[in-house]
């Protein structure tokens, strides 16, 4: 039995996730869309906190909200032409978009609902930073040193790629 408080928290988070997501993809102005995205990301971070993953929530805020959205804003500013801020949607596009989204929703919803509908949150201790660190640096079962090293290579490559592309010459 969840506490009322957590339910209220949940409702707020869930609602903001849904609403801001919808807004982020429907907002006419691109900057607003970015802002709504930011809210969505915050709401997600909140969700992580609620689910007892504070470390993840922090990362979410730091990387996503702090890093990526800022990147977006810069990009928007770099690429905005006066006048194309507001875009009008073709109804045809909208229909196809809706079809895809609803199909996805139905399929995913059906799949999820039929498989795991009655599960409630079990109790658990939130992981300490030490465990997190050990897991990240460990080489054993369900420990992630190798992905960590690998992703570093990936990030390096993306940096190189980004530089090459963005470089004017």
């Amino acid at each position: 039995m969840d506490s009322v408080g957590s339910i209220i928290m949940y409702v707020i988070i869930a609602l903001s996730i849904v609403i801001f997501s919808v807004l982020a993809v429907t907002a006419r102005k691109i900057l607003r869309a970015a802002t709504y995205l930011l809210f969505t990301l915050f709401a997600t971070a909140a969700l992580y906190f609620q689910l007892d993953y504070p470390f993840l929530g922090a990362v979410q805020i730091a990387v996503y909200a702090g890093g990526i959205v800022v990147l977006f804003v810069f990009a928007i500013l770099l690429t905005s032409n006066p006048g194309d801020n507001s875009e009008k949607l073709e109804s045809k596009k909208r229909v196809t978009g809706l079809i895809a989204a609803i199909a996805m929703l139905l399929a995913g919803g059906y799949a999820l609902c039929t498989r795991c509908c009655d599960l409630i949150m079990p109790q658990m201790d939130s992981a300490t930073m030490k465990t997190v660190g050990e897991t990240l640096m460990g080489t054993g079962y369900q420990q992630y040193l190798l992905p960590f090293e690998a992703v570093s290579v990936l990030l390096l490559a993306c940096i190189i790629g980004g530089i090459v592309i963005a470089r004017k010459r």
Partner: protein
Amino acid sequence: MDATIQILILAIPLFMFLLLGLLGKYLSPKIAGILGTTAMGVVTALAYYTAFNYFFSGDPNFQREIIGEHGETVVEHLQYIVFNPVWLEFYGNLHINIGFMLDSISAMMLVVITTISFMVNLYSNAYMRDHDGVYEKGFQRYYAFLALFSFSMLGLVVATNIFQMYIFWELVGASSYLLIGFYYTSPAAVSASKKAFIVTRFADLGFLIGILVLSYYTGVFSFMDFTSAPVEGLADTYHISLDTASTVLATKFAGSAAPMFMGCSVLTWALVLIFMGGMGKSAMLPLHIWLPDAMEGPTPVSALIHAATMVVAGVYLVARLFPLYLQETTALEIVTVVGAITAFYAAMVACAQVDIKRVLAFSTISQIAFMMVSLGVCRPEYHHGVGYMASMFHLFTHAMFKALLFLGAGALIHAVHSNNYTAMHGLRKYMPVTHWTFLIGCLAIAGIIPFSGFFSKDEILTACGEYSIFVYIWMSAVAALTAFYMFRLYFLIFWWKEHKVHDPHHAPHDQPWPMTVPLIFLALVSCVAGFINFGDFVTYNGEQHTFDLDWTVAGISLTVAVVSIAVAAKMYMKENPLPDKMAAALPRLWDWCYHRFYWDELYMFITHRIIFGLICKPIAWFDRHIIDGTMDAFATVTNKASWSIKGLQSGNVQTYVWIYLIGALLLGTITYICLI
């Protein structure tokens, strides 16, 4: 027995063919002609020797004495296999041999073929050059073809088995094709040769299927197994035996799982189909249409192939299988009917033709039909099978006098450079030798005593009379027509009116000796051949028998012939309007006769309109448009599909992901639906 002579009989012409065919152009025409003629002369001598030996040597391989029905001693001619190596094996006992069988009819045929062939070879030396003695182009080739023909025809008559006969049957067809088309630049000759080949090919289809049926049921090809029984004590000698034929019928056909097919016995079917081959070669109605056209070939060729030898192959075939035919008289009745109708038809048509070679061609058809009828009406119980003997006798005499007539016609044509009697008229003074020999030929074919045709035709009519009075009357009428049209021809050529000489220096005259000698020789033969007692040589079962002349029949036919000749003389001896009046009086009949009862037109219609128009062209169209179109359609549809789905690749990323997502969802959904 030493087979060298028999091998040579076949080998010399073949060798001459190869020699003249391959190296002919390096030889001068004169040498080629002499070479060809000499070779044929040698073959003739060998054939005479062989035949003489066969009939008169008394060799136990060739004849034996048996006790006849009435206890008298009868000489029986035997069948002797000179050599018979296997050429091609199929299965079981079914193998084709190329052999040499000597029996009474093959010996007779050897004589006929080599004689006529030699005459024609000799004759052609002069005929195939113009008045200045310049040889025709392709002279060597001509002699090569003649040699090929002689080889094939000899091979045909000495065949030991039906498939060998078929092989040489095809070869004579081909050589006939080559010789008819000798003047290959003339479209008429080309189409005539084509026609001859195709029509006979069609007939051969029947022959082939007949062979297939016969050989399947009996498991053999050899004539010996159909019609003969071995003579005890001699390895390669057989005697004709009706018992063998009836055993074949009883055990192989009647005893098989399917003795009947569509109401007739299978043996009848086989025999009728085989006879179909004979109809084609012997130009029986309705497969006769090629023979008149075949006259486009050089006249000596017509004499050799289309009068004396090849065209009687059909008769020979039936005679060869006669004991089998006797087992199924239905087939023989068909032979009779076809022969009778053809005989009358051809005689009618011959009365109205202008081209002298055409007249002779129809006359040939009619006379061969006589032989066919004669075979058809032959039964052992009728006068010791007189029909068989008469048929062979007529074959023999006809070969001589018809060759004579053709060679005479050749001399005429060579003299006036036209085939039509309208260009001739009154030639008797200019070409006396030709005239007299031609007259002898006409008398012989008309059946005037003592010329050979009288005797043979008389035997045929006797046989017909024994069989059925209707057939007798019918054939007598044909005989009357024969006498009429032959003398019509004779009078129109040699009498009618004075010959108009355009150029006194080139007035028609008798031809050089190579052409006249054969005429005289054949005329002499035609005069005396009738007195041969043919029953001593050829009977249906090989036993010698003396056939007496039936003077009642002879008298009637002689009378009929004389009357016909008189009518012809009345109408055509002097220029008079009677023929035109006659034509005008019976316009329809005249037209039909003149146009040969429109058979050619009918065939034209069938081949061009139906076969070409309704089968070949639609099939070709179907192939190009439907079958090929379908194949092309696979390509077109693929291409169309390619163009029609190009919108998928719209270039817009959003479409891409839309398709991506829907694709993924469909993949999952459909699999899930199928799964549950």
